[in-house]
């Protein structure tokens, strides 16, 4: 994903994109109390941006992709359509993954005290904004391009 992005958008734009994604991750963290961290990864498991402390982000991005492909198949075979989100609740907290457009996902880590209703609310909006950011970078507005 990173390489694909690099080829298409160039280094400077990629850094700008990462800064914007990081700002978005921090904004979610600010709006949802008890959030431990988050990352944006491509669906093939490569890390795009992260704001996690203590958790190894590239490993988490890879695992997100693995669980995502299973979740996708599960949704597909049971006729639920496209993957939208998944929530894993452990003894010590939550791992939530949200689709951010067709090529990336937003994964958030939360403490057990988190308000899940609020987490869903904020993360869904944030995933949409992230999809928008990625879309804008992958499809740069070119005046010569009619599409």
């Amino acid at each position, binding site marked *: 994903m990173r390489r694909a992005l690099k080829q298409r958008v160039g280094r400077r734009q990629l850094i700008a994109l990462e800064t914007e994604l990081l700002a978005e991750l921090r904004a979610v963290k600010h709006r949802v*109390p008890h959030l431990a961290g988050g990352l944006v990864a491509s669906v093939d498991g490569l890390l795009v941006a992260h704001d996690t402390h203590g958790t190894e982000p590239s490993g988490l991005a890879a695992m997100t992709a693995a669980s995502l492909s299973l979740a996708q198949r599960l949704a597909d075979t049971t006729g639920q359509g496209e993957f939208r989100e998944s929530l894993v609740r452990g003894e010590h907290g939550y791992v939530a993954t949200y689709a951010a457009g067709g090529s990336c996902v937003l994964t958030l880590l939360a403490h057990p005290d988190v*308000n*899940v*209703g*609020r*987490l*869903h*609310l904020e993360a869904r909006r944030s995933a949409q904004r992230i999809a928008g950011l990625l879309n804008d970078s992958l499809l740069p507005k070119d005046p010569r391009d009619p599409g």
Partner: protein
Amino acid sequence: MTDAAGALKQAMTSIEGAIGAALVDYNSGMALATLDGPGGLDLNVAAAGNTDVVRAKMRTMDMLGLQDGIEDILITLSSQYHLIRPLTGRTGKGLFLYLALDKSRANLAMARHQLTRIEADLEV
């Protein structure tokens, strides 16, 4: 005894001025049941937001050293009343009823009285 859906229906039909009701789990912030009225409120947003209200009040009471329970929380807007009533029954632990009322049509004393009865009847 009424179930969640029945209790919300009762609240919406019998309480004058009701514009939305929800049964919310304040451990997760998610609604177990919602019933829309003419108010056009997004009750899932209300559930998540008011969970923070309930948690904040419980934390405050804890910090003040008050060994007491919340009977209800009233929020008065310029055109609405919002009533929050934590469930006290054995099966209702960690839940609260949320009721939004149109201020110009509602009778607050009556609404609180009716909500108390609905809560007492509710079996989750």
